[in-house]
Each structure stands twice: as structure tokens, then as C-alpha cells.
């Protein structure tokens, strides 16, 4: 019996060792900073803050989605079916959710494969149903970098100056606070740099609400080249080739 348990343990270790360490096609859990966190080869991280500075954002949840992006094609790079079986190590989808909503701010560290990403959508709930396909910020994550996207403040059904009510995820940035959030992981804190955001990244629309999100002050992407008349959808990238 003991021999059987040892054999099972060895098999589990072998399977674990065989699995690609960076196989994160979809990243929907923040890194656990209570435990040691290391970036793997060709990995970086996206750091997002959730800020609740006032009464109307207090105790609100939020979710922010990022998708892998092809800046040249101006479209997201969708995950090919069968990617996991094919050994694909690209990250195609990142969903950062707020943590303890009683805090004035909390930060989500999402470990991803290197490449270009676009802000796909954001909502003052824990479920994303919108898309910023009509224009969104895009940015690059290089290997070994922790890229600080910025902070979002969740406003749900708030009143605007003109009287209408709507949702918002107000953008702000506090790089020092973002670094401080990683104080338990000094190596990661040292790797933090602000995202080089460029607004106006568009992509195919799929969601119920099709919107646009522009980070104030960020430059615009240059105009996209006109598509060829019979342009096909972007082909899925080859497994493991990065962006």
C-alpha cells in the first residue's frame, strides 16, 4: 500500500513537471502575494488597482477584462480551439476582479505571457458584459515586467451632470501605491513600470454593450490601414509564438 502511494506521488510529480509552467491561456485569478511569486520564462504581469475613494464607489466590486491584441490587424487574438492540447502557452484572456470590497483600494496582479493586450471591457460588478470594441487602450507586456495598467473606480448606476444614470469605471493612476501593494514581493515591486497606453484600439464587437474607453491623456494609436477588400479574420497565432 505504501509502495502504491509512493508510486502515485511520483506520477503526480512527473505530470506536474511535464505541464508547461507558463500555460495560462486564460488568467482569471490574481496571483497570491501571500506566497512567493515568480515570473516564468516569457511571462510578465498586469497590475490593476480597484479604488473606492468616495461614498458611491465604496463597497463596490469591479471587473476588468484584457484580451490579447494584434496591433497591426486591429483585432483581438482569440484563443484557438484546442490550444491547450496543442501546448499553446499564450495568454488570450485576462479577467481581473476586485478583492476585498471593504478596502479603499486593492490591487490584482495577473501573471500573463508577454505580448500586446487591449482593455476588452470593464464593469462595476464581478461579471463583464460589455466591450470597448469601439475604442480602448492597448499596451505591451514584455517578459519580466510588471505593467501597471492603472486604477479603476467602480461606479454603478450613478447620476451624471446631465441627469442620466449610467455605469462607469473611472480611470486614475497611482504608481507609488501600486508598487506599495507589492511590498511583500520586492522583486516584483522593482519590476513595476507604468503601461505605455495608447487609446483607440478597436476590435470585433461581441458583447451586449459596445462602448469606448479612453484613458485621459494617453496618445491615440495611429490610424489603421484600410483593410483589403476580402480580408479574412486574423489567423490564430501558432502555439507558443507569443504575440
Amino acid at each position, binding site marked *: 500500500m505504501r509502495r502504491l502511494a509512493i508510486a502515485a506521488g511520483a506520477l503526480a510529480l512527473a505530470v506536474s513537471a511535464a505541464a508547461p509552467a507558463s500555460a495560462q491561456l*486564460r488568467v*482569471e485569478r490574481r496571483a497570491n502575494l501571500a506566497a512567493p511569486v515568480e515570473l516564468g520564462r516569457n511571462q510578465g504581469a498586469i497590475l490593476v488597482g480597484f479604488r473606492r475613494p468616495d*461614498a*458611491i464607489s465604496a463597497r463596490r466590486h469591479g471587473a476588468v*477584462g484584457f484580451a490579447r491584441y494584434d496591433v497591426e490587424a*486591429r*483585432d*483581438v487574438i*482569440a*484563443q484557438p*480551439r484546442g490550444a491547450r492540447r496543442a501546448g499553446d502557452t499564450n495568454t488570450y*484572456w485576462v479577467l481581473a476582479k476586485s478583492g476585498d470590497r471593504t478596502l479603499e483600494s486593492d490591487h490584482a496582479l495577473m501573471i500573463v505571457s508577454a505580448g500586446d493586450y487591449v482593455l*476588452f471591457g*470593464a464593469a*462595476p*460588478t*464581478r*461579471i*463583464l*458584459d*460589455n466591450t*470597448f*470594441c*469601439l*475604442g480602448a487602450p492597448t499596451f505591451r507586456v514584455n517578459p519580466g515586467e510588471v505593467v501597471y495598467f492603472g486604477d479603476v473606480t467602480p*461606479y*454603478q*448606476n*450613478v*447620476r*451624471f*451632470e446631465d*441627469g*442620466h*444614470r*449610467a*455605469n*462607469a*469605471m*473611472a480611470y486614475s493612476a497611482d504608481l507609488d501605491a501600486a508598487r506599495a501593494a507589492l511590498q511583500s514581493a520586492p522583486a516584483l515591486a522593482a519590476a513595476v513600470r507604468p503601461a505605455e497606453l495608447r487609446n483607440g484600439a*478597436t*476590435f*470585433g*464587437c*461581441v*458583447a451586449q*454593450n*459596445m*462602448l*469606448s*474607453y*479612453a484613458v*485621459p491623456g494617453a496618445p491615440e494609436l495611429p490610424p489603421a490601414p*484600410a*483593410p483589403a477588400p476580402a*480580408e*479574412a*479574420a*486574423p489567423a*490564430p497565432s501558432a502555439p507558443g509564438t507569443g504575440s
Partner: protein
Amino acid sequence: MLLSMALASSLAAAQDVRTVTIPAQPAPSVPLRDASGTTPQARAAAAAAAMEDEESAEKIAEEAQRDLRESRFYNRPGATRAQYNEEWQTCRLIARGSRTPTGGMTYVYNPALVSPLAAGIGAGIGAAIAQAIIEARMRRVNRRACLLIRGWRLIEVDDAEKARIAAMSDAAREAFFNSIVGANEVGGRRVRTWNNDFAAPRLAAAQGE
């Protein structure tokens, strides 16, 4: 139930666009396939393809006319009616999910790819999203957002102006809209423009009920 509530609440408020509520259904009751075995995604793709088959300039102009009404119409200073028709059609295709905003084909209906959002929130809701893209109300809201982001203004006129336009002959009304879509000065009871309200909301000082 939680998903339905979340969808309904998040639909209830979107950027510069007013409330439109899609009847949210609990995930298990969303028909993934109809009686013929067709998925909502496939039906949406077929609808988009069928729509593009009938795209003559006359047809586009006729369809674009739907958003030029006595009560409200679009305007962008300097634009022509032909530009309006073209942009209206572009936004129509974008809202359908059959074109990217830069004009390319999208991955949305490509069965070899996994749609990020649909896959992220489950097959049932993913099907609901595809169904929503088909639905006229949501398409109209998204088409409007697309046009506003492209610099168009949605002008809502007062009752007197509405009555004046309604009293015009067909030819006079056509001439009126041909000129008003590009007019520099347009009076209106309400003028909607795109604002970056999702990222930089202009919140009211008082948030009372």
C-alpha cells in the same frame, strides 16, 4: 438568477447611451440550439451574411433613413448624406458583429476561435450575447454608440419642429434631411454627443435617488 440580475443591472446603464434592458434569462433556459439544431451564433452569422447580400446603395440609403426622423436625426457638421449612409451602414455591421471597426472581418463567428467574453462567462450567457446581437433594440443602441463615437450628434427636436418636419412633403423632407445631416448649426431640444463617460465620468454633485 444572480447572472440574470447582474446582466440586467449592467445593461441598465451604459456610457452615453440610455437604458435598454434586454430580457435576461437564466442560463439554463437559454436555447443553445433551436428545433433545427442551429445555435444562436450560427443564426446571427446567417443573419449578418444575409444582410450583406442585400447591400445595394439604395437599400442602405433606405435603411439609414430609419434614423432620420421628424423627432430626431443625426448631424455632423460638414457631412454629406452619402457619408451619413456609409457610416450608418458601417456601424450597423459593427453592431451586428460582422465587421471590426476598422472594416475587417471578425473572429466573432469563426468556430475555430474561442470568443473571449462568451467563453469567459459560460456557454449559456455566451449564447445570450449572440442572441442579443441579433436583437434589434440592442443593435440600435450599439449602432448609436458607434455613430456618436465617430463624431455624429443625435439631435432631438422639440414638438414644434417635429410638427414642422412632419408637415413637409416627401420631397421637401428629403431635401431637409440631405442638408441637416451636415449643417453647422442645428437647434434641438437635446443634443447627444459622445463623451468619455465610462473612463472619466462627469458625475453630478448630488447622487440622491
